[in-house]
């Protein structure tokens, strides 16, 4: 049925997602950052389609692109342009160091968890059709490692947001 090899689709989706998220972080204009974030989210939705979970993909688009990006856009537009320019010019050492520490800790954590539990990961790649109610038990009994990695990612994002939002004096 498919005309292109699945690896190529995977590489394209990964490129869209990663380049989108890098642009979202690096964009000088915050609006472009939000648009790049939306493109990155659409790439993630493409992964869900690729993994035979179209429902999840549609919800990803409706909630993340349709609601969260709109929220971000709206917040950015409420901030005056002048204050945005000041923010991009700010060059202090503190945030960068904390970010590096966080990224390093995260990398060590993920690598450690993966190394400890890597051999125990279930190997069957056949997606089983599960009722939604059994999603939770399967997640904590069969796939605890990805769950822990996700939790680490989320908590580091939360810590990073705290650092960014900290008002100096």
């Amino acid at each position, binding site marked *: *049925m498919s005309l292109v090899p699945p690896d190529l689709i995977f590489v394209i989706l990964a490129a869209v997602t990663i380049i989108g998220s890098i642009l979202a972080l690096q964009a000088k*204009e915050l*609006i472009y950052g939000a*648009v790049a974030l*939306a493109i990155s989210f659409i790439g993630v939705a493409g992964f869900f389609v690729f993994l035979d979970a*179209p*429902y999840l993909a*549609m*919800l990803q*688009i*409706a909630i993340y*692109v*349709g*609601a969260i*990006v*709109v929220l971000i*856009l*709206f917040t950015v*537009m409420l901030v005056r342009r002048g204050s945005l320019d000041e923010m991009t010019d700010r060059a202090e050492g503190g945030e960068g160091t904390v970010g590096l520490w966080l990224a390093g800790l995260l990398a060590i954590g993920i690598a450690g968890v993966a190394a400890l539990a890597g051999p125990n990961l279930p190997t069957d790649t056949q997606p089983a059709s599960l009722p939604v109610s059994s999603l939770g038990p399967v997640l904590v009994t069969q796939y605890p490692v990805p769950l822990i990695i996700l939790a680490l990612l989320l908590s580091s994002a939360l810590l990073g947001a705290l650092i960014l939002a900290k008002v100096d004096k």
Partner: protein
Amino acid sequence: MVALPTTPADILPFVIAIVTSHAFITIVFFPGFIHLMLITMFLTWYERKILARIQLRIGPLYAGGPGGILQPIADGVKLIFKEVMVPYKADKPLFLGIPLALVFLAALPFAVIPFGQNWVIANLDVGIVFVFAVTSLFPAMILLFAWASNSKYPFLGGLRSLFQQVAYEIPMWIATLSVVMLAGSLNLVDIVNAQAKLWFIIPAFLSCVVFFISIMAELERLPFDLPEAEPELVAGWYTESSGAIFMLLFLGLYMKLYLMSSLVTALFLGGWWGPAFLPQPVWFIIKTIFVATLIIIPRGVYPRIRVDMLIRIGWSRLLIIALVNLFVTIFLLSTGILASWGL
């Protein structure tokens, strides 16, 4: 799937096989590109004609054909050759790119709209969720375009449009929920097939009303056209658009009008079902044009409502009515009354 050609003599049969394949015909001709363009152009003429009749005018007349039906082509040619004026200090990439994205997003959901048993491009299992996921991107596009215009009136209009569309998505989705429960499927083809004996407008009448009012707010049609209120905001979020940009925006908006009307047809009015003397797609298009007429007529009849009325209708009327119909649907389904009606 046709085998790829190996010798030069195979190329012509290969091309013919591709062009006559069902996938190509559905994408390019019938529910796809050409049909969409023709219907969208027809709708612009049709709306002007209806409004003219309501206001005792004649409307477009001189552009050839009966009743000036070639007017959209003349308008299109005129708009393409006009200058595109980009406002001072506007965000050029977004200002020029968003109209294209808007047309693309308005055309994309037609891939899952079933115009007949076999006249659907992609028979997707999550069809209705796909339509809602794509249409939920419209407010973001409109806000971005309004912001990129770098002008006060478009920005105010864009904010109003964003709030209005996001707020009225909620009753629209809940109204759809009862139809999904009645059909037991998110697939639009299955939903229409489930209406072979009884159109869903009968068991889910309140949902149909709520859905209809919600799509009028989604489409920014009168009486919900606060985002383009002429006395306050000049023309709302497309004030600064001109030439081809204006044409693309209007193409997207009228395509969305056709999309929402076809959703009403597929969800509540039995889709392609009708007496057999006309083919299925013709029934679907007739019903859709009828719904579009119902959406257009209030523009010539009603005044614009105020912002507080908009909020009150959305949150304390439509949402509650949609929930009531949801509970009625659950009651009908659980007591098995609907089974005796042939569902």
